[in-house]
């Protein structure tokens, strides 16, 4: 039993932490949020040079070959800086799915381009009623001869506006609810019949709604084999819960440090407000929530990385814990900062906003609790 970091994990943590301290303060981040692109291409190149983009990609495709546990240390540090570059969508969703479901040729060409920073990816899985469970999607790709005709509407595709290629989850056979019959198509955003509406999300990130109207795709657009993508996508989404939760842990750590510092310095009634027990206990609760969420992160990361029997259940349990922890810690960090907590000028509110998104992304706490209730009690 050992929770100390491996050399790779330590290196990754140091590398990201150094970058954020040196080149990614809050003002810089905000100027990127407010820029046309919404992030920095120079940073993206730098991330490639620093090796971050190769972290979760297998060595045979030129990556570092880190596992899911390794990625949580990258994600946690990125969270601390509220980094807006599309690492989550490109690596944790897109590249991970290519790696799990692509043909060997697709893996070779696409993953190499991801590592070198040439290819940004997005995964278009979600639709209004199907935020997490892709068996519920209604986007279809009908086979006609050796072509597929794609119709449908994907909502809130994270990183969807900046992605060079988008992976679309579509139904090629079966009916709503079936695991069989799900396929993934690789499309260019400017593909004929595709319309993209890009926007900023509440947390300063970028996303897009993408509509497909009779988009004609040839068979080479298919990622891997047809009809069989469910398991790969489901696995990727559960792994992405772990990665996203790690980001939340980084954010909550920052909020605790910053709020404690504020309580030590802010004077009211002739005292630092941190002298007041009601605030001390609130902060102790925030600290405990964060530590418990971090423990849950380690549990789920290890279960998923080792492919244990109850691994997906562990990921869902993590999302529930992250849901309650992010709500509590985010809201209380704002509350304890008083009026400053709700001012746009201060970073606290922006960390809070990202936590709010994280609870909603990949299925909220309530969603996963409900899913867990459906799974019969499994003896531990």
């Amino acid at each position, binding site marked *: *039993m*050992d*929770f*100390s*970091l*491996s050399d790779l*994990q330590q290196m990754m943590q140091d590398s990201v932490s150094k970058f954020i301290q040196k080149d990614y303060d809050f003002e810089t981040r905000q100027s990127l949020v407010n820029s046309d692109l919404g992030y920095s291409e120079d940073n993206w190149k730098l991330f490639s040079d620093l090796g971050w983009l190769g972290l979760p990609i297998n060595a045979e495709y030129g990556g570092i070959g880190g596992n899911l*546990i390794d990625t949580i240390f990258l994600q946690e540090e990125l969270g601390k800086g509220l980094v807006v570059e599309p690492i989550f969508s490109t690596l944790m969703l897109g590249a991970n799915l290519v790696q799990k479901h692509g043909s060997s040729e697709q893996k070779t060409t696409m993953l190499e381009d991801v590592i070198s920073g040439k290819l940004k990816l997005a995964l278009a899985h979600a639709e209004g009623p199907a935020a997490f469970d892709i068996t519920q999607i209604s986007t279809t790709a009908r086979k006609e001869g050796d072509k597929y005709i794609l119709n449908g509407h994907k909502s809130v595709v994270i990183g969807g506006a900046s992605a060079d290629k988008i992976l679309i989850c579509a139904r090629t056979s079966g009916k709503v609810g079936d695991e069989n019959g799900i396929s993934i198509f690789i499309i260019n955003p400017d593909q004929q019949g595709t319309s993209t509406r890009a926007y900023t999300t509440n947390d300063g990130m970028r996303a897009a709604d993408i509509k497909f109207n009779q988009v004609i795709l040839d068979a080479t657009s298919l990622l891997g084999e047809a009809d069989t993508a469910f398991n790969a996508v489901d696995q990727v989404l559960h792994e992405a819960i772990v990665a996203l939760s790690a980001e939340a842990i980084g954010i909550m750590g920052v909020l*605790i440090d910053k709020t*404690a510092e504020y*309580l*030590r310095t802010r004077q009211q009634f002739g005292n630092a407000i*941190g*002298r007041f*027990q009601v*605030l*001390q*206990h609130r*902060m*102790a*609760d925030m*600290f*405990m929530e964060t*530590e*418990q*969420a971090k*423990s*849950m992160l*380690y*549990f789920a*990361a*290890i279960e998923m990385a080792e492919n244990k029997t109850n691994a997906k259940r562990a990921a869902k*349990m993590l999302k*529930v*814990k992250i849901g309650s922890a992010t709500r509590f810690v985010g809201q209380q960090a704002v509350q304890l900062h008083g009026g400053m907590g709700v001012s746009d000028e201060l970073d606290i509110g922006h960390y809070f906003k990202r936590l709010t998104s994280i609870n909603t992304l990949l299925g909220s706490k309530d969603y996963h*609790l*409900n899913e*867990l*209730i459906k799974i019969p*009690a499994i*003896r*531990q």
Partner: protein
Amino acid sequence: MDVNFTTADLTFQKEVRNFFQNEYPMDIREKQEKGIYLKKDDHIRFQKALYDKGWAGINWPVEYGGTGWSATQKYIFFSESGEAKAPRIVPFGLSMVAPVIFSYGNDEQKQRFLPDILASNIWWCQGYSEPNSGSDLASLKTKAIKDGDDYIISGTKTWTTLGQYADWIFCLVRTDDSGRKQEGISFILIDMKTPGVSITPIITIDGTHEVNEVHFDAVRIPAKNLIGEEGKGWTYAKVLLTHERTGIARVGESRARLNALKELLDNPSNDVHNLSQNTIFMTRLLEVEIELKALEYTELRVLSAISTGKAPGPKSSILKIRGTEIIQTLDELFLEIGGIHSLPYLPDQYCDASDFEAIGPSFAAKTTATYYNNRKVSIYGGTNEIQKNIIAKQVLGL
């Protein structure tokens, strides 16, 4: 990052599991299974079985007959013990007074006291709290006045758990009230048979006699019963408190109770209220399961830090707070599944092993008593509010 046990750890785990399944008296095991309260003799026989196995001194150094176990081995022991519903070790001798004696006592004291503690020949109790000194323990007033080679002790200690069985009591007493209140406190050992010591029971809301008041009316004890230096008792007690918190989270025991709850739900004859179809109840059950799993990993993280030579630190306050919150939530869930059958007050059913016709399912009568009794867990050992003060001060710098 790795939570897997080594081959040696796994072998150890098997040995521990086997002990709790086969190697301690079967009648005690049966009582534990049925949820019947143990008597004094049961506790002693269980602890003597541990002693015979060489496992009594879990946190003791090998030179005093301790196990010398690693943090991982201690974790395995407590985890298996909890899951097997084994009795908890009565902590006052083996895990509370002994570490103070082997850390701060002189050679004569070590030879005199440690062997009998290890073999559970002597029953110890704790004299810390007083009627007017609870959370503010350092305000304690029980006086020890030096008189030649003796101390004269006067005052009252309270919430003395199982003091009715005790042969000896270890006390924090005031030897000086001129300076800072923490600095005038000394750590002293008192034979309960000394003239002037008297004990009165306190009955708790579950109807049981577990705690007591202990009165000292000019009790004359030899000065050689003082441990370490006069005025250092507060320091010793504090060191003891953070010395070893393995097992304080009681994860293994809570996991066993969670599984017991699930088993009750699985059996339709128990689940008379259809709670398994009640989303609100099932949500609460799931949330406590998640919290418990997180706590298991928090404990593993603390242990991992200890095994790499770091102090567990004030973060272990989380183990106490969340561990007790989980215990109390499980109590509520049991109360819920007990339903109306948790209402009758039937102490005979869990105070005595004799045949007793249950009203409703056999587990139901005890649910309320356990719920009441466990209100103590967030109060004793430093209330959960005091634990939060510790986190705020020592972790967050407030």
